[in-house]
Every structure is written in C-alpha cells, then in structure tokens.
C-alpha cells in the first residue's frame, strides 16, 4: 500500500469514528479532499520581503498585492472569488488587480502552466506561523537577509510532534537579491554565494532544505516583459555606454532631465519601477552583450534572477515529494482532531498515525535528510553527499538520485545495483556506529525503491 493510500484509509477510519461530530467531520473531509489537490505552497515572510513579487514571478503574471490571503490555482479561465462571489479582475498599469475590500481571503483561478503542479498562497505579512504551516503543505520563506527573527519564525514552524517526525518542508529564499552590494552589476552572483554560505550554516541548515537567492523584481519583470518595454530597453542599450553611465547612477538620475535617449520621463519612470535601477543596468548590459531578442533576454533574466533555481527547488523539494508532503499535512490535520476530541476509537487512530509516521519510507527519507543536514547523523563527507542524493535530497527522480543528467534505461540498473551493494555493506559494517548503520539501511531501501520502478 502506498503512503497516500494508507493516509486516505486512516482519514476514512477517522471519519467513521467522528461521524457524529459535524465540526471534526467537516475538518477531516476538507483534509481528505486536500489529498487530491496539487501541493499547496505558501509564500511567507515579513512585510516588504517581496512575497507578491515572488508569486507574480512564479505565476508569470503581475498581480497587485492584496494584503489578504491570496490563493492562486490553475483554472480554465481567469476568475477571482471573494467571500463566495465572483469579482472582476481589472487591469491597472498592466497589472492584474482584484478589489478585495477588507475580505481576508481571495481565490484566484488563473490559466497558467506554472500552476499545474502547485497551488500558490500569498500570505499577509502578519499571518501567524501556525496558520501558514497549517494551510500549506510547503512554505517558501522569503527574507531580505537572514536575521534572528527569521530563524525564530522557522524554529516555531518545526515545533510540533508530527512536524518533527516528518520534518522540513521549507525553502528559504533570499528575496531582493538585486539589492546586494548596492546594486552592483555582479550583485546576483554575489547573492548566490551568500545563499550557498547559508546552506552550510549550522543554524540555518536544519530549518530548511534549500536556500536560494532570487531577484524578485527582475524575475517578475522578465516573465511579463512587454513589447514597449523591450523596445525602450533596446533603445537604451543602443546609446553609447559613456553617455548613459551617469544617468544610471541612481533612480533619480534615470528619470531626471537631459536624458541622452529620446524616451519620455513617464516611460523611464515606468521602466525603473518595473525593473529597478539594477534591472535597467543589467538588461542594457545583457542586450549589449548580444542577447538581443526578446526570447534570449527573457531566458537570460530568468536564469540570472534566480527564478530558474527557485523553480528547480520547488520541483525537487515540493512537487516531487507531493505524496509525502500531502500525507504529512493530512496527518497533522488528523492529529489536531485526535488531540481535541477523545472518542473510543481515538487511541487506535493515534496508533495508526504513529505507525504511518514511523514506517513510511518517504518520511524515513525526510528524517534522514534532516538528520544529515542538522549533523545528528555523522557520515564521512563523501558518503553524506551520496546518501543525501540517493534518498532524494536533490530530487526524487531516479536520475537525480543517481546524480546523473539522464540515463538510458539499460544503464540505470547496474548503477543502482552498484550503489545498493556498497550501502548494504555499510549497513552491515560493524566498525561504524549505529546511527550510520541505520542511515545506510534507509539508503539501501531507497535504492531498492529505485530498482523497483526502473
């Protein structure tokens, strides 16, 4: 029985036990239907961290921030629902705008390929951490730079028995990477270095699976680049660098008088609002370097802004782990009911939750990953890296687990068998300590899983 089936069965049993309590039943039914949805990814963070911008970049459409909980799902046509009524989606300065009023929540359906595997939830800045982690299966936590307040938030998120048994579902995003180093032209590579340092930091490592840098403004602008903007940028790039240099020093200068390129001040203001002064500097440089068509430019910007890396992280850690994350959320939800309402069947259900948590291999993999990241399990560096890879720390596809780009089907088996043999030996090696042997056993089981599907 797969993990999803087991969890569904548990929920059915719980519904049978709690059929006389309307509140518990409704709660459980909601969690049952949640199992069939795509992974819900909440975008959380302090105010002005760039949450709405990151959502816009991921969806590929610019939305005006609402200040409410905004749910973005895939749909056949664009529609928005506030409090059960459909409201029109207006256009304001080229951005999609939904009048939320003082409602707490808005549901937006938007036809987009990027929303096929995820439901994105844009959260308000002051949303409580329990609510964010309760509503969502996984969280993108955005911050400008990692401070103690961010670590406190993430620690609070991990403070639950089920959350500890099936740990980590967070990707930390250093949003607004374009502001690093005062907006120098190499700000983004610098931001990536900082993200890499955070990945190794013992305080950050146990709290998230991945740290990525994102220049949200640039990514959103790239995904929604318009013809007139592209024309303006090309015109800028065509001007001599020396002439332009002084006017790219500050945002004020860019919209000021005596501009060497015939662009109206309003157009320049719009451009700098959308791209930021760093974005303008970078795009003009890129066009000069020969990325002269719109497609080339967009591709470069998506790559450089860190959006590609963010998408990969969401793919590897969230969408590919859909079953585990969904099961985790469902078990968390079930746990709430079991704690609050005691019935004759409650103890059996609690034991069921316990059994699934302890035995499901997906959770074991997640636990091992967390233990490796937090340093609770000590393996030699090479082995730790291989173990992380094999249990799906870099993606759960067979190729990602084996650390290769793509493998022809007939070469896959020998590679897996080779890894399997080595880890079997390690699992039985009397010289290593018990933690290491257990870790090796989990890796062996992962290898067997790969073998079974290949």
């Amino acid at each position, binding site marked *: 029985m797969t993990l999803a089936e087991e969890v569904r069965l548990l929920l059915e049993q719980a519904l049978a036990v709690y059929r006389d309590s309307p509140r518990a039943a409704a709660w459980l039914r909601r969690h049952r239907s949640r199992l069939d949805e795509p992974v819900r990814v909440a975008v959380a963070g*302090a*105010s*002005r961290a760039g949450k709405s911008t990151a959502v816009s970049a991921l969806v590929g459409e610019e939305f005006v921030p609402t200040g409410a909980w905004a749910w973005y799902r895939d749909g056949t046509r664009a529609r928005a629902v506030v409090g059960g009524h459909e409201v029109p989606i207006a256009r304001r300065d080229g951005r999609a705008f939904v009048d939320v009023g003082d409602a707490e929540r808005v549901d937006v359906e938007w036809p987009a390929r990027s929303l096929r595997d995820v439901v994105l939830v844009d959260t308000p800045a002051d949303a409580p951490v329990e609510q964010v982690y309760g509503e969502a299966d996984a969280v993108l936590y955005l911050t*400008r*730079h*990692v*401070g*103690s*307040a*961010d*670590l406190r938030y993430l620690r609070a998120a991990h403070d639950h028995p089920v959350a500890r048994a099936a740990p980590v579902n967070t990707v930390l995003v250093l949003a*607004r990477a374009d*502001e*690093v*180093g*005062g*907006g120098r032209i190499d*700000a983004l590579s*610098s*931001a990536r*270095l*900082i993200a890499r*340092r955070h990945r190794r*930091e*013992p*305080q*950050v490592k146990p709290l998230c699976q991945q740290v990525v840098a994102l220049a949200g403004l640039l990514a959103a602008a790239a995904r929604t680049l318009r013809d007139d903007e592209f024309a303006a940028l090309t015109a800028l790039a065509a001007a001599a660098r020396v002439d332009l240099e002084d006017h790219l*020093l*500050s*945002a*004020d*200068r860019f919209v000021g008088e005596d501009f060497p390129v015939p662009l109206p001040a309003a157009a320049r203001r719009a451009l*700098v*609002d959308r791209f*930021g*002064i*760093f974005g303008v500097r970078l795009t003009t440089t890129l066009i000069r370097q020969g990325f002269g068509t719109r497609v080339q430019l967009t591709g470069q910007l998506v790559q450089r802004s860190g959006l590609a890396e963010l998408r990969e992280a969401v793919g590897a850690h969230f969408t590919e782990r859909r079953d585990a994350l969904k099961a985790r959320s469902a078990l968390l939800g079930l746990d709430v009911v079991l704690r609050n309402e005691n019935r004759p069947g409650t103890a059996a259900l609690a034991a069921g939750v316990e059994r699934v948590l302890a035995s499901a291999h997906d959770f074991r993999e997640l636990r091992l990953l967390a233990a490796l990241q937090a*340093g609770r399990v000590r393996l030699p560096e090479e082995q730790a890296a291989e173990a992380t890879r094999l249990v799906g720390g870099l993606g759960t596809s067979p190729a990602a687990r084996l650390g290769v780009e793509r493998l022809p089907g007939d070469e896959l088996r020998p590679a897996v068998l080779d890894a399997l043999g080595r880890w079997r030996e390690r699992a039985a090696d009397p*010289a290593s300590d018990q933690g290491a042997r257990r870790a090796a056993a989990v890796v062996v089981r992962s290898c067997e899983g790969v073998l079974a599907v290949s």
Partner: protein
Amino acid sequence: MSAPWLDVLDDTIRSCVTHNRPDLAERLREQRARQLDPKLRVLVLGEPRQGKSQLVNALVNASVCAVGDDVTTTVPTFVQHAETPSAALVRTNADTPTERIPVPIDRLAGELRAGRVDRLVRAEVGLPRALLTSGLVLIDTPGVGDPRPARTASTFAALLQADAVLMVSDATAELTASELDLLKRAMASCPNVVVVLTKIDLATRWRHVLERNRGRLARAGVAAKLIPVSAALRLRAARTGDRALNAESGFPELLACVQRDIVAAADVLARRTVAVTAASALRQLVVPVREELTAHGSPVAVARLNEAQRRVDELRRRSARWQAVLADEMADLVSDVEYDLRDRTRRILREVDRVFETADPARGWDAFEEWLEDNLTEAAAANFAWLLDRSRWVAEKVARSFPVHRDDLLPEGVFPPDVLDRVAKLDKPLIERFTVGQKLFTGLRGSYGGVLMLGLVTSLAGMPLINAISLGAGALFGGKTVLDESEQRLRRRQAAARVAAQRHVDDFLLKFGKDFRDAARHIQRSLRTHFSTLADELQETLLESARSARRAVQEDTTARERRTQEAKRELDRLVRLYQRVQALGDERAAPLVLSA
C-alpha cells in the same frame, strides 16, 4: 583658533591667582585641560546589511571599513583624527589588558575579513580629515540582530559611551518594528540620534519610504532627524570631483547636521560647563571683597568677625555628614551590584545545568561556547550600566547632603573608561570518546561474565562450557556493558562540561568582579576628591572673609578708606568678568547681587 570661552576662562584663572586662591585656579586649570581635548564619540548603529560601514567610508572619503556583500563588520572600528593615516587592531590577552597591533591602513579591511587575529576587541583608524579635527570619533559597529556570533554586546557597550548616534536604515524598506525598538534602546542611552536613510540611489521610491518613516517616528514619539543619503554617489563624486553629484548624494546635508547638531552642540555644552565653573569661582572671589565693602564701623566689623567664625565651625561640623553618606551609599551600592551580578551568573549556570542534563557536550560545544560568551557579556554590560546609574544617583544624594548648594555640585567624568574587556577563553573540557577498540574491549569484558555464568549452569546439564546458550548470554551481557559504559561516559562528559562552565563563570566573576570593584572604588575616590575639593574651597572662602573681617577690625580709618577704594575697583573688575562669563552660557547664571 581659540574659542571665546578659553579667553574668559584664562582671565578667571588669573583673577583667582591674584586673589590668592590657588585652589580655585587649580580646579579651573583642570577643567580647561579637559575641555581642550574633547572626544566626541559618534556611533554608527543599525541592523546588518544596511550600509553602516559604507556610510563611514563615505563620510571620511576613504575605504577604511570593510564592506562586502555578506556580513562583514565583526568588531567595532574607531575612526578618528591623526596627522598621518594609520590603523591598528586591538585585542585582549590573558595577561595584559589590551594589545595594539599596527597594520598598514590599506590592509586593515583584509585583516578583519580574514579574522587571523583572535580575541579582537576593536580596530582603530587614524585619518587626517578636517571633519575629524574637532575630536569626532566615528565608530562603525557590527550589525544588531545577526544570528551568527555577532558581537552585539560590544555594540551596546560602545553605546554607553557614545555622545551621538547615527542610526542607519536603508531606503529599500521602511523602518521595521525591530529597528524602531533598537532606535528607542539607543535613545535611552544617548538622546542625540540622527536616522540616516542610505542607498537612495538604489531605491526607486525612497521619497515615499522617507515620508512613511517620518510618520512612523512621529507615531512612536521619537524626535530624531531623518537624512537620506547615497554612499555610492558620494564615493563616485569623490573619485571624479563631481560637485553636483556630491550634492545629490545627500552627504553635504548629513555633514552639516553632524557639524551643527553634534560638534556644535558639544561646543555649546563645553561653553556651558565652563560658564558654570567660572561663575562659581567668581562668586567665591566676590564674597570677601563685598563683605569688606559693607564693613563700615567697628561694631559691625566685630559682629561680622563672629558670624564668619560661626560659619567656619558649622562647615566643619557638617562636612562630616556628607562623608558618612558617601561611605554608606557606596558600601550599599557595591553589595547590591555584586548581588545582581551573582544572580545573573547563577541564572546562566542554572540554564547550563539544565541543558547538560540531556545534551551531549561532544556535539555542539562551539555553539554552547558562543552562547555562554554572549550571555556573560550581556550580563556584564547590564550590570555595569546599572553601576553607572546607581553611582550617578549616589552623587546626587551626597550633593543633597552637602552644606551649601552650588551649580557645579554634581561631578562629571568620575566614571572609568573601558571596563568591559573580555575574560580568558572558555577551556574546552576533555571529551573522552568511546572508540571502537574500547568498545570491543568493554564488550569482551562484559561477555566473559555471561559466558562463564550460563556456561557453568548449562554444564550441569551436561553441555560443554562454550555452547549456544552461554555464547548468546555472553553477547547480551557484552552489549549491555557497552551500553552502560557509553551511558556513563556521556554522564562523565556532561559533568566535565558543567565543571568547565562553572569554572569559566567563576573566572568571569573573579575578573569582572575585580574590574567592577575597582570601578566602584575609582568612583568613590573621585566623588570624595570632588566633594572635598568643594568643601576646601568653601572653607577657604569663609576663612578669607574672616581674615578680612579681622583686618577691618584692626585697621585704622584712613587705611580702611584706601582699602575700600581698592575693593570697589576690584569688585567692578570681577563683575565685568562675571558678565562675560554669563554671556558664554545660554542659561542665565544667577545674577550677582551688588550691595555696594
């Protein structure tokens, strides 16, 4: 350029000398020396990544503070005036209090980043800059709120000594709640705060942010000035010599503000202090002269002589009282503050005990060490701040029990500088690991008993000594012995860690306790000296009027008339000097009553 207050002060000193009051003259000379070498500490404060170091660099137009894309500043950097550019790293040592290591100025940033020198306390940079000649010291600090072992405590220790604070926040986002908290905390120690909005070249909507920040400050009830600047533009303007760009960078306004609100304000403060001291000295000079003028007939003169002698006696009687107050209060203070320190460290030790009941010191020792260090430094800083507060209060209380009231009763600068040096590093306890060989041996030792025990029992049943059952029991016994042993070793490690922490806290208590008792003694001594000087002056004044009264009784009429003329002239001179002194201070000194 000599300040106008300097001339007045020199004249007053000369008058004191001619009036035969070397004690007053000496005190004024000390004051003069102190005012001539002012150090104005301006602390650059803020959260990480806001552009603090870059702001300091742009202020002095030189890249002296390390700037980088990641968190870079790890120790406070003091930038002050020097004839030639120089730099040094200051670190603490176990045996000597501090040690200065000179480094080439262009290598300072690299040295700090490399972090080769450990136990660094601060870096010092000297630069020949017009801005710094007035005694301005710019202090770049590590960001507050960085989760890594940031030396936040050192920032707050520096805050206690700051004369002004530049609070840095960048224009890409509004002031956050934590920044407002930090701002309020800074204002509690040092009310002279300017908020600097940096990176306005980068932020498109910095004017909007500026407005919102103004609103926030107003709502929070913080009266601080907000100045938008761009260090990038300023540094570029300095390279290219572009005046328009420099004006755009906002730095001229910031410099003017520093000049006006900090340097000039300090000058006003200096003038006021000088005015108060000089006025008090002059008033003492005037008393005997005026009394000589009022003495006309012999009966009056005799009454005056009696009165003067009565006042001298009374002064002697009452000065015993303030001495008692000072001694009592200081003893109370020392015991209270010491108790507070013990209480704080005891709480830390409790926490250590609690942690090491479960945690294994073999893992995470480094994190623990940082935690302990940070907590101890914080305890020391809080404790020291309290000592300063209390001693100020003691000074006020002693001043109240002083026989007469004067404007300069309360002393300034009785507090010793730089008490917060760090103690020696925490010694890592010996962590014995349970190696495989040891495990094997322990296991064998345990299994031996098992094999023998069950082997003997089963041999009664006719089996050989070594059989399946006895071997199984041997394995079980061996496993249990290994488990027990590793459990015991964990306990031993935990005990060792607790002892190491205890010993470190003891060291800390010993070192800091000594420092703090020294500081308390220093304060007591300064207060005693200060008040006894005042008392001596008072006594001298009274004795002088007693002497003149005696002269008045003894002298004959013609001589007395000549002396009256002289006294009148002298009084005129003193009054003119007093008026000049009054013109110095903004607050009006008490008007000099002339009855002649």
